């Protein structure tokens, strides 16, 4: 891992804040909207709807922040930055890990901002619950960072941006982040259990609802991490050979 590069990457994100503002802004607005409308409804399991919406939107934002790293990678690839790096001693693994870590650096502030908004709206959690949820939602973004890389290494900049955007829809919807799965047909609920977004949401909600086995969530997310990671490694080798 090249820490100098990681620092510069994070600096770049800070310098071009439009993207970050959008990534944080959308789930934040949705949280304030839905949380405001239905926040005080008490769900059958006894939790308030507002807190669940907060977790779901934080999960959605964390996922989006990590996933959109793909568009950046694709742009760098098409514009020739990767080519430039290939004539330096930097290894492909170093480039890829910097990209994954900078994706994680994108995911963290999204969760933090939404939690801060939740606190301001008066959501009450114990310190332990806040911290557990924050860490779970943040680390749970890891598979999405790698999924973003998969997209980024396969397409062109603008295409990957669009593809990533299109992926967000089923991931958010079928993953039960936008509306409770109970409101959707059963077959969608079945699909949901194969999606990493569902388990990311479950991971976020678990400190409150204890609805899902954390073990299952971790396993599913780990599978969604390992498989794309293998694709990335394979792709990056081929790509080097192709240029």
């Amino acid at each position, binding site marked *: 891992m090249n820490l100098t590069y990681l620092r510069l990457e994070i600096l*770049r994100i800070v310098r071009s804040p439009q993207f970050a503002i959008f990534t944080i802004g959308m789930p934040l607005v949705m949280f304030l909207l839905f949380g405001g409308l239905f926040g005080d409804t008490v769900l059958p399991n006894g939790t308030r709807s507002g807190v669940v919406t907060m977790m779901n939107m934080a999960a959605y934002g964390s996922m989006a922040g990590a996933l959109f790293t793909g568009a950046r990678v694709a742009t760098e690839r098409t514009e020739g*930055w990767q080519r430039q790096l290939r*004539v*330096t*001693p930097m290894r492909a693994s170093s480039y890829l890990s910097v990209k994954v870590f900078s994706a994680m650096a994108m995911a963290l502030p999204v969760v933090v901002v939404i939690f801060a908004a939740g606190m301001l709206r008066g959501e009450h959690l114990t310190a332990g619950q806040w911290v557990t949820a924050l860490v779970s939602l943040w680390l749970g973004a890891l598979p999405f960072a790698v999924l973003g890389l998969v997209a980024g290494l396969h397409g062109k900049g603008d295409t990957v941006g669009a593809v990533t955007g299109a992926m967000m829809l089923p991931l958010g919807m079928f993953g039960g982040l936008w509306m409770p799965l109970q409101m959707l047909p059963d077959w969608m609920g079945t699909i949901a259990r194969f999606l990493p977004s569902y388990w990311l949401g479950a991971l976020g909600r678990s400190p409150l609802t204890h609805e899902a086995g954390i073990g299952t969530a971790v396993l599913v997310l780990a599978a969604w991490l390992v498989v794309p990671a293998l694709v990335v490694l394979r792709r990056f080798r081929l790509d080097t050979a192709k*240029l």
Partner: protein
Amino acid sequence: MMGATTGEAAFSLRGLAKRFGDVRAVDGVSVEVSRGEVVALLGPNGAGKSTTIDLLLGLARPDAGEVRVFGGEPRAAVEHGRMAAMVQNGSLLRDMTAAEHVTLVRSTHQRPLPADEIMARAGITDFANRRCGKLSGGQQQRVRYAMALAGNPDLLVLDEPTAALDVEGRREFWASMREFAASGRTVVFATHYLAEAEDYADRVVLMRHGRIAADGPIARVRAAVAGRVLRAVVPGAPEAALAALPGVSTARLRGDRAELACADSDAAIRGLLAAFPLASDIEITAVGLEDAFLALTSDNAGITDNVDNADTVEPEGALR
């Protein structure tokens, strides 16, 4: 000449071949470059220069043949900081400053040069803190040069290094390159400017259609490719008879006017006068290196359009 050659190989390319679909971009290229040499890879666009350079740098894998750089794989030479390059179509990051690019590349090297020295040598100190998106093409090119210098390489590979530079920029760039080469380092640069090859290289490798058309010191390449053209009015002479004259490579008739491309113009004129005593208005002109370059690197080239097949101006096996 700039560099002091030690005789040890900086790199060698043996029987390299690379095709893209039906196009043989590189078709049997073999070159060995000694340490300290400054070599120009000369040829028109599409001659295979960039592909050759990609193969040398390990950015592409050859379909056939072998690349050795300082006795090892190209990637190993890059990772050890021994080979560095300015590639074509490499981009910089718009939202990072020139100095940050240098910082980044330095961080990838075990023993980088000091940042100040890199920036001074590449001439980017004045705009070090500007973001690359705001730099001119020439300034960006210098940032890429700085990135190539960062690891203090023994072999510097430059693909069309002055493409984006104005006249002054070119002058400064070559001055800096000379300084680099003067310390006994090896430089290979691709260019389609004959003047750059003439002025800055010890040795010229001329490429055409993915093959090496000539390879040697500029003077030898010049001698090998530069023939003479004999023009005369020769009433009633058949073209075939003119082409068969001693020393003549090809002949073309336009009315009574003959244009003979000659490998040996002395023999040609003696033969012409013996066979056609009525020949008049005789004129012999040397084909300059520029013309010879055109003749060698294109199929039906400009001024020497009497030379049907460029190969004919090249003496058999002269420089291969």
